């Protein structure tokens, strides 16, 4: 590469590089932030100009102050904690169960052909419909909520596992078989790692389904800690600012988990599995 900034001293070169990096960062922030800023601006403008009744669309500031009140008076932090804990638990159980079922039954055509359509059918039934059954069977306590969340995650994960298994390169499987891999050894050491990159995408989808299922479930016992209860109570008394505050919290959690967890996981797996340009 040709010398950058030609003729500068070492420290000047470093400065230039730093300012380059700063500019790159600014560009990055603009590129990723302009739309959110625009949305917030339009929102603020609409409410500040008084075009919409505040009970239909509270001002951004009002929602923020409601959010503050929720954190101080309702201890929203512990709600958030409780919800996230349930979410991670239910999601993890659903993921493990779904992937295990897929791996264990996806090897046989008869097993898969029998089970897969049933799961696909169940997947078309919204979790909310299973809630009354879950309360009767598991009680309203943690178990029902967990069961519903895990079930909501289980179905798409099992389907994703089946899908991923069909996309594994036949040559790879043949290579494994030729080397003597069979049965459980094959599923554990070859099939499973081979589908990991697809599963990572599936995990994100499962997370989204887990959220849906959990929110539906948390709505039952509104008094207990959990974002769903706050949402439902806000809805019940027509406090639109509470509803929007909770939406905001879920949104931020969604973006943060996506960026901090899923994107990294995906990047790591893709690198490890050599799916992005090596080097």
């Amino acid at each position, binding site marked *: 590469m040709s010398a950058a900034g030609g003729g500068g001293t070492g420290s000047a070169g470093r400065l230039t590089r730093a300012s380059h990096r700063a500019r790159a960062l600014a560009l990055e922030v603009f590129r990723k932030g302009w739309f959110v800023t625009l949305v917030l601006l339009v929102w603020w403008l609409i409410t500040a100009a008084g075009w919409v009744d505040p009970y239909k669309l509270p001002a951004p500031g009002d929602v923020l102050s409601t959010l503050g009140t929720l954190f101080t008076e309702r201890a929203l932090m512990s709600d958030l904690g409780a919800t996230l804990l349930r979410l991670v638990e239910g999601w993890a159980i659903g993921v493990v169960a779904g992937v295990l079922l897929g791996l264990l039954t996806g090897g046989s055509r008869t097993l898969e052909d029998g089970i897969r359509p049933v799961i696909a059918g169940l997947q078309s039934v919204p979790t909310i419909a299973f809630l009354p059954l879950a309360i009767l069977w598991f009680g309203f306590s943690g178990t029902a909520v967990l069961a519903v969340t895990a079930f909501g995650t289980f179905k798409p994960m099992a389907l994703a596992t089946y899908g991923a298994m069909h996309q594994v*390169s036949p*040559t*790879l499987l*043949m*290579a*494994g*078989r*030729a*080397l*003597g*891999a*069979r049965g459980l*050894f094959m599923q554990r*050491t*070859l099939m499973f*790692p*081979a589908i*990991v990159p697809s599963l990572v995408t599936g995990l994100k989808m499962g997370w989204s389904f887990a959220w849906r299922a959990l929110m539906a479930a948390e709505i039952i016992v509104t008094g207990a800690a959990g974002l769903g209860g706050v949402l439902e109570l806000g809805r019940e008394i027509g406090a639109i600012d509470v509803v929007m505050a909770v939406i905001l919290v879920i949104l931020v959690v969604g973006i943060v988990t996506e960026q901090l967890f899923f994107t990294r996981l995906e990047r790591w797996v893709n690198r*490890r*599995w*050599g*799916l992005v340009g*090596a*080097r």
Partner: protein
Amino acid sequence: MSDGPALRVSGACKTYERSDQAALLPTSFQVERGEFVSLVGPSGCGKSTLLGMIAGLIAPDSGSVEALGEPVTGPGAGRAMVFQDAALFPWLTVFHNVEYGLRAHRVPKAERRERVQDALRLVHLDDVASRHPHELSGGMRQRVSIARALVMRPGILLMDEPFSALDAQTRTILTDELQRIWLETRPAVVFVTHNLIEAAFLSDTVHLLSSGPGRIVKTYDVDLPRPRDEAHPALLELRHDMLDRLRAEVGGAIARRAQIAEVTAL
């Protein structure tokens, strides 16, 4: 182990489900211990099918395959396979890739370690043992694939177009390497390729197949001392013979295919 040939294919044939034509007509040939045999022929003539039957990955419709004196009913440690696109496991390091077959056969850990290192040394890759496949060049990947096969100490090595995804220069280098490795370890080899020079250069015997449906149409013996030079005039002449024969066959196949196309209105 008996002292018979390494491999005996007797009337093995295959028609795939839902296909209206045999992929391979009843085929018979024999490979002696330590012999290097190539299969050449146009695309779709059943080379991979034949190799799959020998590997025990595809069951012949009728006929039989006998490897190292025993009938083939499935994959076995005595036969190892190398695929066109290396087919390495991307999530494992080079070391663990080579180790995989030994794990599947429950070889004890200490012995595994030693054998893997030996195999990697043989293909000159002992210094990249901890890399992942995507950190290697295409040629290195294919050498790992060969090590993964050799570590099983196979009596029969099966190779399905192992170099066809590589560029010409790397290919030339690897062909030299393969000759060296084969001279050192001496398994019987069944080698599939489209490259006639490669086949002539490496083999003791070349079987030429033709498609529509697949069968062996001609067999060439290559009686030249080793190590050989690629530019040997006898090799070039052999290549020319085979090319002529193939052109005739391919022309015939195309004509036949056109006829079929008319009937089935593809």
